[in-house]
């Protein structure tokens, strides 16, 4: 139920996770570069445990998981909670991880833009939230470029690398999407427009 479908970016594709992806997932969760950058999705584990986790993820009603590909290679994953009972309909991006061997190639922004197009252009959500480590400069740059703004900052929240780091809380509103991306980032050509 909550395994994501295909969302195409210009250079990356978010797609349904497969059991074949799980060895890479486990390797990423054990990678200190990713562990320093943000929250991991589960600790490293044996293959059978990962299969069980994928099975459980599929039963999730509101949290969706995607694998991210580029040039036919698995390069990352994204996981978001969708919908809101009491607030405006929105998404909360819980995990967005790119394989450190694939960093600095522009894949992160491309996949993030495609995912937000899915949130705003396909699901008609009103906002999207994320929390980032204050020293995760590449992620903060992607968020800022997309249109996120900071609304709160937790001090000395995460302990890693022998010290505490702050946590930045960000929101991107539907109006920002409309203003910044809606014209260029439509998944489908509107009816009545001759292509």
């Amino acid at each position, binding site marked *: 139920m909550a395994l994501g479908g295909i969302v195409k970016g210009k250079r990356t594709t978010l797609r349904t996770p497969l059991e074949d992806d799980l060895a890479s997932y486990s390797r990423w969760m054990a990678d200190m570069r990713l562990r320093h950058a943000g929250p991991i999705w589960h600790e490293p584990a044996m293959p059978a445990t990962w299969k069980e986790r994928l099975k459980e993820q599929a039963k999730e009603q509101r949290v969706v998981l995607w694998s991210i590909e580029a040039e036919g290679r698995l390069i990352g994953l994204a996981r978001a909670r969708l919908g809101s*009972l*009491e*607030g*405006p309909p929105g998404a909360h991006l819980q995990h967005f991880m790119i394989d450190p061997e694939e960093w600095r190639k522009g894949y992160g922004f491309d996949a993030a833009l495609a995912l937000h197009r899915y949130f705003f252009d396909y699901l008609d959500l009103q906002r999207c939230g994320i929390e980032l480590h204050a020293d995760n400069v590449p992620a903060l740059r992607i968020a800022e470029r997309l249109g996120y703004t*900071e*609304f*709160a*900052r*937790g*001090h*000395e*929240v*995460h*302990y890693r690398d022998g010290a*505490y780091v702050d946590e930045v*809380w960000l*929101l991107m509103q539907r109006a920002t999407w409309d203003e910044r991306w809606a014209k260029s980032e439509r998944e489908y050509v509107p009816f009545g427009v001759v292509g």
Partner: protein
Amino acid sequence: MFGPRIVGDNGVELRPPVLEDYHLFRTWGMLPEVTRFWGPRFTNETPATAEERLKKDLENDNMVFWSIAYQGETVGLNGIFDINWTNRDGETGIFIGRHDLYGKGIASEAVRLRMAYAWKELGLRRTHNWIALANKGSWRANQKSGYSQIGTYPRSWFRSGEWFDEWLGEAFPRTFPADKLPSPWRDEEHPK
């Protein structure tokens, strides 16, 4: 896990919950008088599942949970939830289920006892919380024990035709007022 009994001032104490308290928690969560800023006012819990819930909470090492008693009677709940033992950080929450007792300072005292326990016994180094901005009584009660605002989450709750923002706060051991330390910790640090 459940927290220990901590006796405060003015008839307020924190104590480990019992099964009867869980029935009260469920009942209070359905009342309009106390759910303006608490939950969706529906539940999947029944009297039969209360014991199962109690056992789960008891076995959960990442939370510390209390009932709040006032003059010997259970009137609410209090706790530290989702504790991250690496970051030594947790989310605090308090709920007074007896709306006829609002304004008596019960929440302020319960928060003071909880925070003293967090800093003096659990070794936490930070806690955080989310409170409806319009629920001044609640965030003021937390401020008195060292919480400060770190941001405002817009449009968190929709009630009766209007949106309400949320007050986001955090606290540290160093922000707890030393002169408010309750017994037994006060006795150790301020011998008379």
